[in-house]
Every structure is written in structure tokens, then in C-alpha cells.
């Protein structure tokens, strides 16, 4: 019965798609075969949480737009994730601390203004200045003078510009960092480092209404909270020109509705297949369903500020818990294979060269109830006799997997009270309890990479007092290794040193790695060449519409 229904759905969607193509053909110049360069596709979107400014956007929905309208010094290859030169002609350094950056000629913003060295320097200064409340300001923290433009809480801002940035001429500027940071150039593909045109500073409100950038698309219209129309920018000087006429991003209140719209032929691309539809998606879409690895890892973090979780033997308890979780089964049944059991603390998108090492976790991530029981016993038992796994219940399907993890732990320990879920009403409240150090047991910790570097999976999460070290784990050996790795000028060696640091994380089980998350997408028959980049965002400019 189910199969029959879905077959009908597919036929229906196909028919709708065909009519849509027939209708859409009229407006464009060439309607031949595969790839109509003038045709516009529609894609699901979520309302961005923050104003659309490069240094103020820290979530996927806003990031999606920035990726379409901005190009920065570097760009992460949509397939390999490698940082490649985009606007950068050369980034030179002799000591991994002072960099001379040359900007390529011939680039302009879509309003005609030239992209120069000052476009970058001004944008970075704006992003770093505390006055402007930019949520990604900490991306500039390695640049000399950051402390003056962005003092710690309670301090007074003494400068508006970063002393480490100097414009040499129209094409060149220099960056001085506060410490050696060998992979700094590779971080420059992050949207926060995008250049900004003068109009951003002279007419800020106007710019926010209709952002102007230098990417393959320009914004034709933007109705906040409902939709954004992006048109291909004909004058785009880069190699990665848009293969379609434009993209209409439609805000959906619910990803289920977006999926229904895709089925009905009203929408071309859904980049987040709802969990409830994962069972049917293969039957509904066939090979028009994408399920590819993204730079996201889910872990369970621990409150190391709580004495009970910070005893000399508690690493055995944590390792024991890790061994009590049947990752394979949970990713299969709950996530329908849209997650892969984790065997290290990074992500497969980094690749072997980038620092991903399959199996680095070793035995500690293998399901073994007997060993789990033994380890927890050796470690002095569960603190308080029970673990509570905290998660936010408002978004995502966290409840399901937390319950499954608990179930797995309870089965392994033969104790149906060993683990319970502890839902927190809203994400804001969940974050609140974490920052206020109120967690009494393990809690869910998702990490989506900012840039495809092993450094980004380790330093912000496990370095002493780092920005996202929510469990407040602290280990001298780890810190020393990270410092060494950052000072390394040879990338391969730096990666190796980071992996050594990762082994320290493993030996202490600073956080239990659960699974790597995939990006998922479904698209209509009008589209071809649809891909997701390592950030699980569709590579819009390469999509062909027929």
C-alpha cells in the first residue's frame, strides 16, 4: 500500500515538474536539453536569525546567502573542502605570524565598485569592533590589536581599527597576528572575512535591506521573513559563474511543508529532508535524494566543573559509557543512515590529509556491554548512580536519539535507571544552563565546522577556556600540543601534531564522539548537477535547470 502511494507521488511530482518546465520555457532564451542558463530554481530556506552581515552571520540559513553573494580571499572547494585562492593572488609569510596578502585585479562588487585591499581591511575592522556587536568578532581575535578594539567584558574599547592590519597599496595589505598560526590563510574562506563595499558603511540600513556583494549572484529582492530572489550576476568576474538564471529562496515555517511542496512540484530543492520522511525519501525521489557527509559531529560533553565527573578515575566511567552506546544500531534505525558512527573527533570531510583518522578512537568507541560494565565499575560507578543526558527539546529530533542512547546504556548495564534523558524547553535556555555551568551530567554538543581544518574540530572545543569548551575540560598536554601544531610551518606536520592532541582527548574521553552528520537534500526533475558542499549547503552556482 505504502509503495503504491509513493509511486503515485513520484508520478505526480514528475507530471508537475514537466508542466513547470513547459511553463518556464517561455521566459528564457534557450530551452535546450540539459541546462537552461536563464532558468530560475526555487529552494527552501529558513528565516536568518541575525541581520545579514558577514561578521554577524553564524548559522546555516544566513550563511547560504553569503555564500552566494560573496567571494572572499579563499574559497573552500565544494567537493574536497580544500581552501583555494579566490580573490587572493598571493598570501606570503616567512614566520607564520606576519602575512602579506595581495588581492587579484579585476574584481568588483556588483554595484561596480572595485574590490581593493581596503575593502577587506575596512570589513575586518568593522567585524572586530565591539561597537558593532558582530557575533563572529572572535574570528579576528588572532589579529594584532584585537584586544583594543574588542576588550574583554567590562573593559573599555580603546581603538576602532585593528593595529595588525595595514593597507600597503590598492592591491596589497599586511596582517600581523598575535601568535604563530600556520593555518591562518586557510581560515580566510570563512564568510566573516568577506570584503565589503563602501555602501555598507555609508548606508548601513539600506545595505541590510538589500545586501550588495561580489559573488556570482546579486539580490534582486528581499522580503524579510518570506523570500529572497537572487539573480545571476552577468558581470561576475570569477570562474565559478552561475549555471542557472537565479535562485529564489523561500522561507518555510516547517521543513515538512517544504518537502510536500517538492512532492507537489512547487519547489525545486529542499536542503533539509525532514526526519519523518527519511523512510520514504528513497521511494519518493530515487537518486534525486542526496545524503553526503558534512563537517558536523555530534558528541556528548561532560561537566568537568562538577567534582563527581572530574575524579582521577572518571575517564574510565566516560569510556565505559562510550562503550555502552550502540552507535551502529542508532544511526541505522533512528537516523536511517543519515549519520555515520564516529570513530574519531573530527569529520570525514577533512580527508586523510586534512587530519581525519578513521578508528583513532579505537576500542573506546566500540560497542561492548561487558567491557562497559567493567570500566564503569572500575571507575567508581556512575556519579549519583544515574546519568542524565541533557538536550534541548525544541528543535531537531534530539529526544529520539537521546532516548535511544539511554536505552542502549541501560541495556548494557542491566539497569533500567542507569540513564535518563533530561529535556530542556528551549535552545536558549539550554545554552543558558551550559554557560551558567548548571549541567549535572553529560549533555548534547553538536559541532559544525567553521572551516575544514582539524584545528577547528579541536581547539575551540577542548583547549583550556576556549570559546566552545562547554564542559570546561582542561589538559596541559593537549594545550601544549595544540600550541605546537599552530606554530608549525609545515602543514602535514601541523596535522600530525593535532592528531597527537586528539589522542589526548581520546585517552581522557573528554567528550564521547557519537556520529558524523550528513547533509541531506532532495530535488525535482528539473535540476541536475546538485551537490552539497562540506558545510551541507547546496552548491547553488553549479546547479543546472532544464
Amino acid at each position, binding site marked *: 500500500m505504502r509503495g503504491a502511494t509513493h509511486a503515485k*507521488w513520484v508520478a505526480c511530482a514528475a507530471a508537475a515538474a514537466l508542466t513547470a518546465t513547459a511553463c518556464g520555457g517561455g521566459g528564457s532564451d534557450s530551452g535546450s536539453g540539459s541546462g537552461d542558463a536563464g532558468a530560475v530554481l526555487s529552494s527552501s530556506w529558513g528565516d536568518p536569525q*541575525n541581520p545579514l552581515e558577514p561578521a554577524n552571520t553564524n548559522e546555516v540559513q544566513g550563511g547560504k546567502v553569503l555564500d552566494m553573494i560573496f567571494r572572499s580571499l579563499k574559497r573552500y572547494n565544494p567537493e574536497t573542502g580544500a581552501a583555494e585562492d579566490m580573490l587572493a593572488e598571493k598570501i606570503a609569510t616567512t614566520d607564520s605570524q606576519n602575512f602579506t596578502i595581495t588581492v587579484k585585479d579585476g574584481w568588483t562588487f556588483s554595484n561596480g565598485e572595485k574590490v581593493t585591499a581596503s575593502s577587506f581591511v575596512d570589513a575586518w575592522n568593522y567585524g572586530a569592533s565591539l561597537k558593532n556587536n558582530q557575533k563572529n568578532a572572535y574570528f579576528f581575535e588572532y589579529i594584532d590589536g584585537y584586544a583594543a578594539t574588542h576588550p574583554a567584558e567590562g573593559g573599555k574599547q580603546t581603538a576602532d581599527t585593528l593595529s595588525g592590519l595595514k593597507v600597503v597599496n590598492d592591491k596589497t595589505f599586511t596582517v600581523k597576528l598575535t601568535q604563530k598560526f600556520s593555518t591562518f590563510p586557510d581560515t580566510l574562506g570563512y564568510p566573516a572575512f568577506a570584503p565589503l563595499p563602501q555602501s555598507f558603511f555609508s548606508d548601513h540600513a539600506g545595505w541590510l535591506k538589500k545586501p550588495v556583494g561580489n559573488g556570482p549572484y546579486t539580490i534582486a529582492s528581499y522580503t524579510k521573513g518570506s523570500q529572497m530572489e537572487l539573480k545571476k550576476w552577468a558581470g561576475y568576474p570569477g570562474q565559478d559563474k552561475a549555471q542557472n538564471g537565479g535562485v529564489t529562496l523561500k522561507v518555510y515555517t516547517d521543513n515538512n511543508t517544504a518537502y510536500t*511542496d517538492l512532492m507537489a512540484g512547487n519547489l525545486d530543492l529542499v536542503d533539509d529532508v525532514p526526519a519523518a520522511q527519511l523512510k520514504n525519501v528513497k521511494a519518493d525521489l530515487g537518486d534525486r535524494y542526496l545524503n553526503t557527509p558534512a563537517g558536523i559531529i555530534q558528541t556528548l560533553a561532560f561537566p568537568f566543573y562538577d567534582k563527581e565527573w572530574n575524579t582521577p578515575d572518571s575517564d574510565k566511567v566516560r569510556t565505559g559509557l562510550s562503550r555502552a552506546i550502540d552507535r551502529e544500531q542508532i544511526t541505522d534505525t533512528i537516523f536511517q543512515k543519515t549519520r555515520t558512527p564516529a570513530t574519531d573527533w573530527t569529520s570525514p570531510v577533512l580527508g586523510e590529509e586534512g587530519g581525519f583518522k578513521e578508528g583513532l578512537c579505537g576500542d573506546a568507541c566500540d560497542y561492548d556491554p561487558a567491557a562497559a560494565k567493567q570500566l564503569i565499575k572500575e571507575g567508581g560507578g556512575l556519579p549519583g548512580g544515574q546519568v542524565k543526558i541533557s538536550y534541548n527539546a525544541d528543535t531537531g529530533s534530539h529526544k529520539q536519539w537521546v532516548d535511544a542512547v539511554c536505552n542502549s546504556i541501560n541495556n548494557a548495564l542491566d539497569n533500567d535507571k542507569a540513564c535518563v534523558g533530561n529535556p530542556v524547553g528551549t535552545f536558549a535556555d539550554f545554552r543558558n*544552563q551550559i554557560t551558567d555551568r548548571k549541567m549535572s551530567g553529560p549533555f548534547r554538543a553538536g559541532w559544525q565546522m567553521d572551516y575544514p581544518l582539524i584545528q577547528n574540530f579541536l581547539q575551540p572545543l577542548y583547549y583550556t577556556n576556549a570559546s566552545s569548551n562547554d564542559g570546561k575540560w582542561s589538559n596541559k598536554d593537549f594545550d601544549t600540543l595544540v600550541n605546537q601544531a599552530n606554530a608549525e610551518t609545515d602543514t602535514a606536520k601541523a596535522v600530525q601534531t593535532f592528531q597527537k592532541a586528539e589522542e589526548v582527548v581520546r585517552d581522557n574521553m573528554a567528550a564521547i564522539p557519537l556520529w558524523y552528520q550528513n547533509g541531506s537534500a532532495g530535488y525535482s526533475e528539473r535540476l541536475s548537477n546538485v551537490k552539497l558542499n562540506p558545510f551541507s549547503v547546496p552548491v547553488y552556482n553549479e546547479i543546472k535547470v532544464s
Partner: protein
Amino acid sequence: MGRYVIRRLLQMIPVFIGATLLIFLMVNVMGDPIAGLCGDRQCDPATAAQLKKEFGLDKPVWQQYLTYMGNVFTGDFGTAFNGQPVTELMATAFPVTIRLTIVAIVFEIVIGITLGVVTGLRRGRPVDTGVLLLTLVVISVPTFVTGLLLQLLLGVEWGWIKPSVSSDAEFGELIVPGLVLASVSLAYVTRLTRTSIAENKRSDYVRTAVAKGLPRRRVVTRHLLRNSLIPVVTFIGTDIGALMGGAIVTERIFNIHGVGFQLYQGILRQNTQTVVGFVTVLVLVFLVANLLVDLLYAVLDPRIRYA
């Protein structure tokens, strides 16, 4: 009459203040909203402090409330976290939801009252039983089931409508969502009208009207219906506010960017300004609708007088 209206208007003030204060406290109890703004990472403390200051969150709650109410009276509802003034959000959300509510109310009035009159006049006949059963089904099935089912059947299987409403949200697109939103109330309106009509059918004034030899049509519309409408009007009046605030489920299913969507987003993001602003307006709608209902009584039944 004039004094009655003034007295009612004055009574609204404490209700209004109490309601907004409650909402304000409830949203604030949920904790620090800035914590959720930076995604799965801790906000840099300096930026967080700066943002708190900008949104006035660093002050004690009572002071926040006073400042907020002071601003509200000058028409300033504050700024949402995405940098948009809340009034701007309202200007886009309320017209959509009002259109949706109008569609729903029209359905309630037209279908609900018609069915009610028809069944009330034919009590015990097959039509009556049939409609009673139907309304029972509608009342017992939750809105989201009706909504998703209609969306799937009409939108995907048969392709009669688009499963989602476009950002313009014109009346035509809102017919099915409006029907879904109205469904439960519609069933109640039918049942209320039916009972009321059936009761009044035997009253003296109807017998008199019939005895006078008035045409049946006039008896039913002028005498019977008019007197039977009082409980129905009360219900529909209070339902206006309920529909506007309760459209969250329907708006989510059909992708309508109205009040429900904004409230949902506001609650998820714990955006005090958005939630309190929208709820304040909804409270006002409730109060005004109730006042209008009370005033309508006198129009329907001249015996009702206001001192």
C-alpha cells in the same frame, strides 16, 4: 450606552496591564535570550553584554517592563533579534492572519449558521443526525490531522491547490487553510445554532408570528434566527481572538507567514520583544472583540439595555 462603553473601556486597562505583565514575566523566566543567539557555542562575553545592553536586558525585570510599556504607548514595540523593528514584523504578519481569520469567520458564519438553522428546523430527521455525526467527527479530529490530510489530498494527490501559501497570501490561497482553521469552531457554531433554534422554535413570539400569517421565511430570519443568534454571536466574537492566536498550527502546516509564524519563531528564539509585542496586540484584539459582542446584544435583542 455611552457610560457603559466608557466603563468597559476602563475595565480593559487592568486586564491589559495584567496580561502583558504576565507574558513579560513568563518570557523572562525562561532565561537569558542572548545565550541562544550564537548557535552551538558560547557568545563572546563582551558582545553578549553589549547586546544585552542594547536590548535593555541588563536591567531588572520591573524596569524593563516599565520602559517597554512606556515605549508601547508611543508606538515603539522594540527590535527583534534580526534587527527588524517589531512594528515592521507586525505590519507584514497581521494583514495575513487577519485575512486568514476573515476567511475562517466567513466559513463559520455561512456554513455554520446555515447548517445550524437547517438542522435546528429539522430536528431528529436524517439531515440532522447526519450533520450531528459530521460535526462530532470534525470536533474530535485535531486540526493538524485535518490540515495535513487536506494538504496531502488536495495539494499533492489531486493537485487542486498548492500545498503551501505564497508570501502574498491572497484570499484565494487562504480558502483551504481558512477552512481547516475554522473547522472545529464551525462545528461548534452549527451545534450552538441548532440547539438555540430548536429551543426558540417553540417560543411564544414564534407562535405569534406564525399565527399572524407571516411568511415562513420572514418568521425564520427575522424572529427565530435573530433571537437565536445571541449565544452564537458570543461564541464567534470570542473566537476571533482565539483564531488569530491559535493559527500557529494551521500557519505552520500551510507555510503562512502570519502572526502564528512570528510568535513561534519568537518563542523558539526567546525573543521577548516579538512575543510580548504580538501578544499585546492579540490581547487588544480579544478585548475589543468582546466589547463588540456585548454591544451587539442590544442590536439583536432590544430588550437588553445597558445602564
